[in-house]
């Protein structure tokens, strides 16, 4: 029988692998639920109900969708470039999931702490572009090709602006290491968004463009290009593209959270009288559970009633468990990180349902004539301010 210390040792060694396995296993499910969330948010904004049929309030819809996509016939059109067609959807999924490796969910939970973490993520997203390009080209069809060309131009343009925004934040932090960047924010007691509001704005816009989200969804503009680069894709390959898209959204939102919103830190981490915020995970989960129980009463069918009730009870149970002081320390970090990411993702959706799509030339104008010059100016001002601070501030 191994001692407790030994078990802890093993856990430390195994931790990255556990997190890795967890992410790869659970993420597809989570992204399915993000899709559901998106549909619900969209419905809400359009004064509809959204999916309601499968499960209570449509809660089982993602699982049904995934099953449908998995058992669909795998159509490979004639005259496509088979190998490339087959391989292309894998690339963005692979790179997006690899990028998860350096996301610090908390001080404790991350797969790897790279001293070039930010560069690593940028490198991975830049490889991801290839999946869209090659997929569009290999389809050997007009709409996908146009979509691929558009997406290339768009992604390459906005990558520059995004780079400028990221570099500005990195300059403030003085490190490329994702964990260290958050620690710097902890030490300075201020989220970097207050140092870098313009940087964050540029990052947000560029990130929406990078993930092909409306109002920048040129590559798959439904009204012009059918479905853009994935017109010829169906079944699970098509689902892979979607998985990649949502993974990318999660990754860019995580970067935003880490760079600008203090990562896993709760708001005002250094203010002692706000310590009650540590109870937030427990309170929030119990609240959500109570909401579920309330809705369970309103369900029409017995099955839905039971399902909703059990779900509510389970969430309350977990919430209560998170209230135990010993556990708080372990869950508070991931909770705040995921909470902030969720808020960011909500903002992405909000933008999607609010703004009309840009025209292609407007998109390019915005990128090259506004975002990039603004990013450069921001970088310059940041650099000068840091220099001034180094020269005169710390000398005192």
């Amino acid at each position, binding site marked *: 029988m191994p001692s407790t210390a030994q078990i802890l040792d093993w856990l430390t060694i195994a931790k990255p692998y556990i997190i890795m396995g967890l992410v790869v296993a659970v993420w597809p499910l989570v992204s399915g639920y993000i899709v559901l969330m998106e549909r619900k948010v969209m419905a809400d904004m359009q004064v509809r109900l959204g999916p309601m049929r499968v499960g209570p309030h449509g809660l089982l819809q993602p699982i049904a969708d995934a099953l449908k996509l998995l058992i669909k016939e795998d159509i490979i059109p004639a005259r496509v*470039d088979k190998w*490339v067609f087959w391989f292309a959807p894998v690339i963005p999924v692979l790179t997006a999931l690899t990028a998860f490796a350096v996301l610090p969910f908390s001080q404790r939970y991350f797969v790897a702490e*790279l*001293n*070039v973490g930010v*560069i*690593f993520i*940028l*490198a991975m*997203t*830049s*490889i991801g*572009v*290839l999946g869209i*390009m*090659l997929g569009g*080209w290999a389809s050997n069809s007009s709409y996908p*090709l146009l979509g*691929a*060309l558009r997406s*290339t*131009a768009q*992604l*390459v343009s906005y*990558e520059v602006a995004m780079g400028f925004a990221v570099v500005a934040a990195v300059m403030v932090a003085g490190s*490329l290491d994702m964990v260290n960047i958050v620690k710097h924010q902890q030490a300075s007691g201020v989220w970097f968004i207050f140092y870098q509001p313009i940087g964050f704005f540029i990052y947000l816009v560029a990130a929406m463009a990078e993930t092909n989200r409306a109002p920048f969804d040129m590559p798959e503009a439904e009204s012009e290009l059918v479905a853009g680069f994935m017109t010829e894709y169906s079944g699970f390959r098509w689902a892979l593209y979607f998985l990649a898209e949502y993974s990318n959204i999660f990754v860019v939102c995580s970067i935003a959270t880490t760079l600008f919103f203090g990562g896993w830190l709760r708001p005002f981490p250094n203010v002692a009288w706000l310590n009650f915020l540590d109870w937030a995970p427990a309170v929030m989960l119990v609240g959500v559970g109570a909401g579920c129980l309330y809705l369970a009463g309103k369900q029409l069918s017995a099955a839905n009633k039971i399902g909703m009730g059990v779900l509510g009870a389970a969430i309350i149970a977990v919430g209560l468990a998170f209230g135990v002081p010993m556990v708080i320390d372990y869950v508070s970090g991931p909770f705040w990180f995921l909470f902030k990411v969720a808020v960011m993702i909500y903002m992405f959706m909000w933008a999607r349902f609010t703004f009309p799509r840009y025209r292609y030339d407007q998109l390019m104008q915005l990128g090259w004539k506004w975002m990039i010059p603004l990013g450069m100016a921001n970088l310059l001002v940041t650099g000068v301010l840091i220099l001034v601070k180094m020269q005169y501030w710390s000398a005192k």
Partner: protein
Amino acid sequence: MDQFFFYMFSAVILVMALLCVTAKNAVHSAIFLIGTLLGVAGLYLHLGAEFLAGVQVILYVGGIMVLFLFVIMLVNIDQTLKEAIFSGQWKLGLIGVALLGVELVWFVAKGTGLPEKPETHAAAPAAAQLGNVQQVGDVLFQSYLLPFEIASILLLVAMVGAVVMAKKRI
């Protein structure tokens, strides 16, 4: 383990480079070239130059190769598929390359081995604690500041050239 990774990346680079040259389809060539570049990034990583590896991927794979593909997609590939990719002199070329290869191998084998690292590199262990990015930054912005800045003139000239050559009316 070290050696294993070195040979693995080298093999990737070589095989991909060969496929890149021999592939008939230009897009396939570009894909194999991407493989080569990723292999080089792997070698950098293996040498402990993470920053360089990251930048290699961002610039070459994410920037240059994407633009390559962009251009290739606009070109009529059906036409190029019909043409022979090697001119009639490839046998002669092969002999030449083989001779050069033999010569290179002979030169390296006959050599007395690599020199001891000179004094300028002796500071490496101490610098290792600094982290890769800091080291690159120190070298780039202190001892190699001039080439770093002058390179901007090089880029400016190349840019002017591209515009002069491509624009309808200057």
